[in-house]
Structures are given as C-alpha cells and as structure tokens.
C-alpha cells in the first residue's frame, strides 16, 4: 500500500480534491472521510469513471416470496400437484403467457421482461432476503433479527454511496417501512436509507417532522442553522469520527436540513398532488400508493426506492390468497406504474425490479400452500434500458430449477449497477481497510439490454 494512503485506503491528495463536494452522501463527501466510513477504490481513478447515468431504480420487494409458478412462469402441462389452479392468459406480446390473475399486467408485457431462469441457494427468510437485497449471501454469524441485519450494504446504499444525491432529495428511500436488510453496513450512516415510516395510502400521509414548526420561517431556520454550526464544538474535532453513533447523528442532521429546506422533497412526498383518478388506478392500498410514491420520488431525483410489501409467504391456501388478496394489488399497482412511466416518457430512465426473497415450491403442500424455494423462480425487470417483452432463460418442466443457463442475485446486482452507470467490478474499502467488490462476481444479464 502506498505510504501516502490513510489507513482507510484513501490517498491524501483525494482529500484535497473533495473540497468542493456536497455533504449529502456523496461518495467522497467530507463527512464520510472524516467519519472513516468507507471509500471507493475508484477514488484513485475517478477520471476514468463513466459519466453519471440518469437511470433510477424502483425495487418492489414482495416479502415472503412470490409464487412465480402461479404468476409469471405457469406450467400447464405439469402434473396436477405442481401446476396449481390457475390458467395462463395471452399478453400483449405474442408467445408470452402469464397467470390469469394478472390481466392488467399482461397488457404491459411489452414494457418489461421476465428472467425465468433465476436461482439461488437459500430457502430461508432472513438469509435469502439479505442475498437478494444486497447481492451477497450472508456469512456465518448472520443474525436476521437485527435491525438492520446487513453484513453487506443493500443495493440502495451502494447506489447512494457511489452516485450520491441528485438534487436535494435523498438518493435512497425506503417505503412504507424499512426492510431489515436494507441497511448500509460498512458504508455507514451517510449511505443509510431515508425511511418514510408512514403509509402513502393513509389519508393524512406526511413524512413525520419533516417540516419545521410554522413559526420558524426559512430565514429564521437559516440563522438557527448557522448558529448551530457555531455552537457545535465537536463539528471540527476528532470525536465524531471516533464515535460511530455520534457521527451518525451529525450526518443525519445534515441530511435532515437538506430535506427540510428542499421544496422538491416537500413536493415529491406530497402524494395528494396526484389526480384522484390516477391514484385509484394505482390502487387505494399500501402497495399501489407506495408504487405511485416511488414514481414521484424518482421523478424528483431519488436514485433508488425500495418498497417493502409483505405477506407473500403463502404456506397455507396459496391459491385463495393470491387470487383474492395479493395479485389484485400487484396487478393494478404494477401495471399502472409501467403505463404511467411510459406515458410520462420516463420508462427509459426508470428501472423496475419485482422480486421476493425466493420463489415457492412448485410441489403443492398438504395445506394447498407452497413453501420456500430458492432453486428456481422468476424475477421481473423492466425500464431503465431493459428491453421489454422478453423472456430470459427458462425453467424445467415443473419450474423447479433453471433449464440451461441460470442467473442469480449477483447477476441481478451487476445488471442494476450497470444500468445505473456503475462498474460492478469496483471495490469499496471497509472501515478496517478490507477491499470488497460491490458485486460478488456476478455478470450483467446481457440478453436484457
């Protein structure tokens, strides 16, 4: 290691170069250097980095695990104990058929593609979630009950760390709650998600405490802020770098000010500005309104929105819950999102990923349910440069595992980063100085591009 490097892997001259960088989670923000969180190896050769892409990503996470044999990869010819109760229907792309309970999505098939050869090795909630949300299978000692439980940063944290904010909105937002694996791990608090602990479907939806009290108008807020920086004696000392929690508060405070003073943020979170008719079409439920909120946030400059939607763990009565409760939400929310993005000319700059932590056992269990199944499932991707109307790969006759070449969480991660203009092969340094590649050896799924 060159002698001019800090113990955290940064060249001293980089410190000079970041002088003018903004404070809000930029990869080379002063805060992240001072706080010793982590820094890209890329800092040394930043000049060769690709120009920033303007693609954002909406990750709709169906927690519990979507049954893809009942939705996006039906097997009408499989034995009855596999194929289930649902029939397939035509889509607006000749030759591609999907499940009958997704009729609206079927009419948007030209705007997205299906990876039917997806596979990974974990069929347990917790580790599988971590695997899908970070691209890294957790190592020994993983405790899924921690909040956050990240051994590795979530995709959103990596995007946030690498690309920084676009405008005054946060780069990475979680809705309507934060998933346990959506944290920033060694990338530290500057890459942590902004969590909206509120349901956009709530009639009084607002981000709690986002606005200053009525009496504190903007000039007063500015003088308060200025005074705060003069009375904060730790702002320039080494204490905040050496104490993680205190450093985090300091970082969060800078983020908070950015958010509070940004009219773009205020407007983005004001879902009430949307026409009632469109809100109805998205569906007046948590999934539908969260997806709509995600579209607003992406338009305002957010780079990654992760929606945590739960209850897809259909061990019992899989068919009834899918048909009556779950699929109608997905059908209206997702189909309207694709149509709306396309109407607004934003499909090309907005990547949409829909997946659970795994699929479900093709063999139906004794409770008319399906259990956890990592070995083979379908992931839906569209927009942001992904070609529409494609099926990538295929599963075997019973949808148990890929038939032929397969793709896993590492490949999905590499594809997302690639489309967002990042190099999946780059490395980060952990606070201890260990280099970690942002993707654990995956390949961009080139058929999609």
């Amino acid at each position, binding site marked *: 290691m060159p002698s001019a490097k800090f113990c955290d892997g940064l060249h001293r001259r980089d410190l000079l170069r970041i002088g003018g960088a903004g404070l809000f989670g930029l990869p080379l923000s002063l805060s992240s250097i001072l706080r010793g969180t982590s820094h890209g190896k890329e800092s040394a050769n930043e000049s060769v980095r690709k120009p920033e892409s303007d693609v954002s990503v909406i990750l709709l996470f169906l927690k519990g695990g979507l049954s893809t044999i009942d939705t996006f990869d039906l097997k009408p010819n499989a034995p009855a104990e596999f194929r289930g109760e649902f029939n397939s229907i035509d889509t607006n792309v000749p030759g591609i058929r999907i499940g009958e309970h997704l009729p609206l999505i079927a009419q948007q098939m030209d705007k997205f593609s299906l990876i039917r050869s997806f596979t990974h090795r974990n069929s347990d909630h917790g580790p599988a979630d971590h695997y899908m949300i970070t691209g890294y299978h957790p190592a*020994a000692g993983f405790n899924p009950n921690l909040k956050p439980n990240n051994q590795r940063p979530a995709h959103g944290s990596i995007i946030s760390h690498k690309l920084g904010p676009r405008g005054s909105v946060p780069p990475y937002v979680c809705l309507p709650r934060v998933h346990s694996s959506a944290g920033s791990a060694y990338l530290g608090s500057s890459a942590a998600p902004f*969590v909206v602990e509120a349901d956009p479907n709530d009639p009084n939806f607002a981000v709690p*405490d986002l606005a200053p*009290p009525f009496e*504190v108008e903007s000039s007063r807020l500015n*003088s308060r802020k200025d*005074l705060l920086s003069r009375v904060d004696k*730790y702002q320039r000392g080494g204490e905040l770098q050496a104490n993680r*929690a205190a450093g985090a*508060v300091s970082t969060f405070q800078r983020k908070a000010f950015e958010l509070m003073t940004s009219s773009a943020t205020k407007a983005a979170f004001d879902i009430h500005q949307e026409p009632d008719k469109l809100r109805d079409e998205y569906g007046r439920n948590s999934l539908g309104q969260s997806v709509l909120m995600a579209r607003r946030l992406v338009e305002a400059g957010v780079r990654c929105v992760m929606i945590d939607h739960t209850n897809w763990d259909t061990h019992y009565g899989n068919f009834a819950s899918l048909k009556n409760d779950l699929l109608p939400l997905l059908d209206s929310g997702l189909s309207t999102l694709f149509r709306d993005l396309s109407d607004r000319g934003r499909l090309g700059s907005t990547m949409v990923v829909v997946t659970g932590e795994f699929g479900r056992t093709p063999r139906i269990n004794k409770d008319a349910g399906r259990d956890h199944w990592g070995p083979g499932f379908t992931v839906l991707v569209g927009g942001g440069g992904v070609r529409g109307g494609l099926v990538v790969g295929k599963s075997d006759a019973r949808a148990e595992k890929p038939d032929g070449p397969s793709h896993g969480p590492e490949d999905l991660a590499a594809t997302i980063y690639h489309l967002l203009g990042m190099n999946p092969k780059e490395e980060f340094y952990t606070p201890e100085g260990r280099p970690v590649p942002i993707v654990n050896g995956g390949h961009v799924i080139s058929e999609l591009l």
Partner: protein
Amino acid sequence: MQNLRMELILALFGLWLLPATSPAVEPPPRRFNFENDIVPILNRYGCNASGCHGKAEGQNGFKLSVFGFDPATDYAALTQESRGRRIVPVVPEQSLLLSKASGKVPHGGGIRLARNSDDYRTLHEWIVAGLPFGSANDPRVVSIEVTPREQQLAMRGRQPLRVTGTFSDGRKEDVTRHARFQSNNEGLGNVDEAGVVTAGESPGEVAIMATYMGAVDVFRALIPRPEKIEPYPSLPEQNFIDPLVWAKLRKLNIAPSELATDAEFLRRVFLDVIGTLPTADEARAFLNDKRPDRKPRLVDDLLQRPEFADFWALKWADVLRVDRQALGHKRAYAYHRWIRDSLAANKPYDQFCRELLTASGPASEVPATAFFKAVNQPGQMAATLSQVLLGVRIECAQCHHHPFDRWSQTDYFGMQAYFTQVQIKQSPRGEVLLASSDAATTHPRTGERVYAFPLGDEPAKANVTGDRRQQLAAWWTSPDNPWFAKNFVNRMWASFAGRGLVEPVDDMRMTNPPSNAELLDALARHFVTTKYDVRELIRTITASRVYQLSATPNETNARDERNFSRALFKTLGAEVALDAVCQTTGVPEKFAGVPTGSRAIQLWDSQVDHAFLKLFGRPTRVTACECERSVEPSVAQVLHVLNSPEIHEKLTHEAGRVAKLSGSVSDDAALTDELYLTAFSRFPTDTERLAVTDYLKSVSNNRRRAVEDILWSLMNTPEFLFNH
C-alpha cells in the same frame, strides 16, 4: 476416482462381501461411528443448522436435530424415513444425501458438498460400509484444543490453527479439517474453512472460535499498532483499575487520552450515576469547588439522591420484566417499587438476588414474586435468571447442545428443575407463590429423570428437600460462583465505560472472551470483598483515571473502541434524553397515569404511550436482553429534535426556561453562561460567548425568539444529545 468406482462395484456385489474383497494392502476398513464421523459433516455444511433441516419443522419434509444433538433420531431420519430414498446402499450416488448435497438433484439449500471432497467420500464410504451407527462404547470427543492458543500478529499477518481432539479412550487426533471456525470480529481478523487466520488492518484483539462435536476452544490474536510509542508515557494510577488498563494499552502501542476537564467529569458522572443532567446551579457549584476531593464528594452526593434509585430501577425493570400487561397495574407497580427501594437502601446485591430468586408467599406482601408471574414457565425462569444474573445464555440448550458453549440439554433441564415447583395459586388473600411440591423434570429426549443441579456442576442424584431455589440462590450468590460477581461488574462497567469488558454483556462464555480479563477479575474480586456493595463499586469505577479520561482522541487511540483508552460517547437512552430536554427547556412532561411532575426515568411502566420514548428506542420488556433497548440513531430522531411540535412547544412555553430567562436576565453574557450551564454543564469559551451574544444583538427586536433559537441550537448538538 478409481477408489470410488471400486467401491461402487463392491457395493453392487453386496455389502457382506466388503471385508473379504478389500485388497490386503489397503488399511483395514474404517470403523465408523455415526456421531463421531457423520454428524460433524452435517454440522460443517450447515445441513442441520436452524435455518435448514435443523428447523423445528424441518425443511421440505426432512428434519435433522439442530446441530446434531440427537444422533439416534438423525440416523433414523436418514436411513429409515422417506422410503429409504435418502440413502440407497446399493447405489450410494443415488442417495438423496449425496445427490442433493452435491447438487445433482435440485436442492433448496444449493450445492453444499463437492463431489470430489473428502467429506463426500466419507459419506460415501459410510454408506458402502452398511450405515454403521457405532456402539455406545466407541470413544467420544471429550475436549478439543486449538494451537497456538494466543499469538501476536502483525496487520495482515497469517496464522494457521491446528485443532486436536481428545477422545474418551485417551487418544488424541488432529480434527482441524472437521472443525468449524468463526471470528468474533471479521474486521479485525478473518478465518477460512481450513482454520487459517488472517489479521485485518486495525489494531486490537480478535478471538477465533473452533467447534467440533460440541467441544469448543478459542484462539486469541493481539494485533498491535505497528508504530511503537517510545518512550511510553508514565501514566498516573488513581486506583487498581488504571494499571490493568494501561498494561493492555502499552501492549497495543496505544496511549490513553488526557484527563477530562471538571465540567466533562461533572456532566458524565451525573448522567452515569443518576441519569439526570446537572442544573445550572449544580454545575456552577461544582465548577467553583476547588477542594482536592471534589470528585468523590460529588459522587457520594449523587449516590444519595432519589434519582439514583429511579435511574437504576429503570435499568433493572427492563431485564427483570416489570411488565404491566403481564402483571396488571398494581403488581407491576409494587414490583418496581421493591426494586427501587432495594436500590435506595443500598441493599447488598447478593441479598437482592437471593430475595428475588427465592421469592414466595402472598403476592401482596412479597412483590418480587411478580417475576415468576411475568416469566411463567420453569424453563424460561431458569434461562432468564441465568442470563440476567450470571450473563450465561442457556436458552439454546433447551432443544440442543449450545453451539458455542458447553451447555447440554441436561444442564438446561437441571436448571429448569429448580423452578418446576413454582406455582402461583389463588387464595383468600389473593395470589400466593408456593414452591414446595415434588414436581419432577424429565429429559425430553432420553425420558430420564433430571434433578436440580446448578450450571457447571455434575448432574445431581436427587432433589434437595423444600424449596429447591434456596439451594440455587446460595450457590449463585456464593463468592465461589464463577459468573455471579463478574456478570454484575461487567454490566456496571459497560454502563459507565460505554462498553462491556465482555460484549454483549449478557453473553459470558469461553468463546466470547473479555477484552481485559485481568480487569474483569479484579473488579469482581473487589465487589465480593466489599460485600456486594453497589455504591462502593460505583465509587471505585468513577474514581479511576480510566473513567475520567477525555473523549477527545489522540493519534494513537482514535480507532480503539474496546480497550478504554478514551471516554466513549454513550447514547442517553429514551427516558434520560426526554428528561434532559424537559429539564433544559424547563417544561416537564405529563405522562398518563402518574403524578404530575414525574420524570421519564421514574416511569415504572414501559408501555406508557409516548412518541418521543418510542422513537428513541425504549424497550417493551419482552425479553431478558439489554439489547432490546435500541441505541441506533436514526434520521427520524434527528428530525424530531429539530422540528417536532412537541419540542417547539417546550421552547416557546410561557412558563418555560426561555420565557423566564429572556425576561429576567438582561446581560447578554450572563444569559449565555446560564444557557451553556443548563444545556452543556459548562461555561462557554470566549469565542462561543461571542457567537451567542452576537446572535442576541442581531435579533434584538425579539429577545425571546432569539433565546429560543439559541437553546434550540444547543439542544441539537451531539454535545447535548450524548453522554461523553
């Protein structure tokens, strides 16, 4: 490969032919023992882990005992269930055990076992050998030893480990390649599957645990800073704590920070001892005190204050489960009161624990019986009390051998047997706790009777007569108990120093060694010698120079978080933070169901609905774990202090501090001093005083608004929001 094919052919011919047709030059066929040879493989590849087939309900119909604690059942699951498809003796490759694990057939757990690995071969040979279970007389592993045990490593240095197993017949064998390894801090040091340790790039100490067949051992590596400090400064020693910490720091090439200022000590000791900020007057009095013994005097004063009992009762109420929902209003209140009164009276800690452990009689007269109502299963009583009073976690051993410790199911049920007598019955005088029956405990697997015996002891042959808990209480609180005093001093140390000597504080085991074992021993000895005097322990800790160090790092200790070379920032905790806000603004909070003027640290009920307390991580008291109290900061917390209507209301309140001071103190400098003493417990520096008086001048048309702004600014600094 040649070998494999040969075995396949042999297998097809039939197993009985095997010994006769083995070539004479080959070593005699291996004598397999299922538990010694096969279970470790299921362990090593995680087949029987709690996330896979070790789950209570198994995985896809195949269930193994978690971590292999029950070899007989696992043997049956493998060889008899599923119509014999898991093992096919005539064509071993078609055994699901091999074909699934190696990925030939789709497997929810993915590919676990390479087909050319030694372990694959072992499984294969075992199948070919006719699935021997082995005999009860086969030697078993009694212990393992890792060599080396300790080693100083340079940054990025490597050290291969060797694990030697000792068997019951006295034989020793290298079991390195079957052992599992795990680092307690991957940043400081990593270990690979083969047991090669690689140090990271930070100074510190890392422990690597090796496990094999329920036996555990630990390797410890010390990784010093590469730059030596020469000459190492000579450091003052204020009591026995200091030399023990200095010795460790010297080994790591780390120098401690300077001594904290009086003002820093003042604020820290108030928050640590009574969970309350000093008022401006209290701060002024101490800062003007020039007596040499002003620090111990201050600590003595604090120990006598009512907030001392409030604050520590709050901490105990978390882990001793003062839970209104489980206990009802009246009993929860009385139980909390008993804890608080015990602290106020400085009841010796051993006596407090004995009273808790043996509580019996009418609930109305013996409030501590509430514990046995809040935690109402004998096994949970044993596990909760072990975790809280000894720092020993035995819960895992209810179902299986503890994966990282020595506890077996027998140990768990031996402890459980102390509590099976406990019954809460209705009587004309209300609820009564009785513990006199001869309730029996049986081992869930063997069906044998288990008698009450304490952790670490040999299984007993009979139960003691009377209330068995008396025996347990006597042993737990005896000076010879290896955990009792250590657990308490470790929790106290963690509370004052910001980090336990053992961390997490309630997880004491050989595989989780203390960061400074000598200091832990010395503190425990001191606590026993002073007859479990809690206040004396607090005096001792706060009198050490280690406790009195500044939080400002120097260039050698900025990255040290584990060796107490500087004061660590501590989060205030929900209740303390809220009280600090209320005291600083001069506007108390009103809580439902308690007298007006009550502070948050006095709340006995952790369910009182309160947005601030929830947001700042108050626990709900459903577990025995201190970790239930969240200490992770969040953007939402920060936004709340910046913007919430609740805090704004306190700043602008007609009867609040801002209204009072802005009306009564006309001198800007004096006003500034008062605000600094209130929020930070110190005087401002000249620069700070100038910044604030300038602000007052600049908003001269509305002094009250200006003071609101100033106090708002002070309250939003890390200096206010943390204990440092």
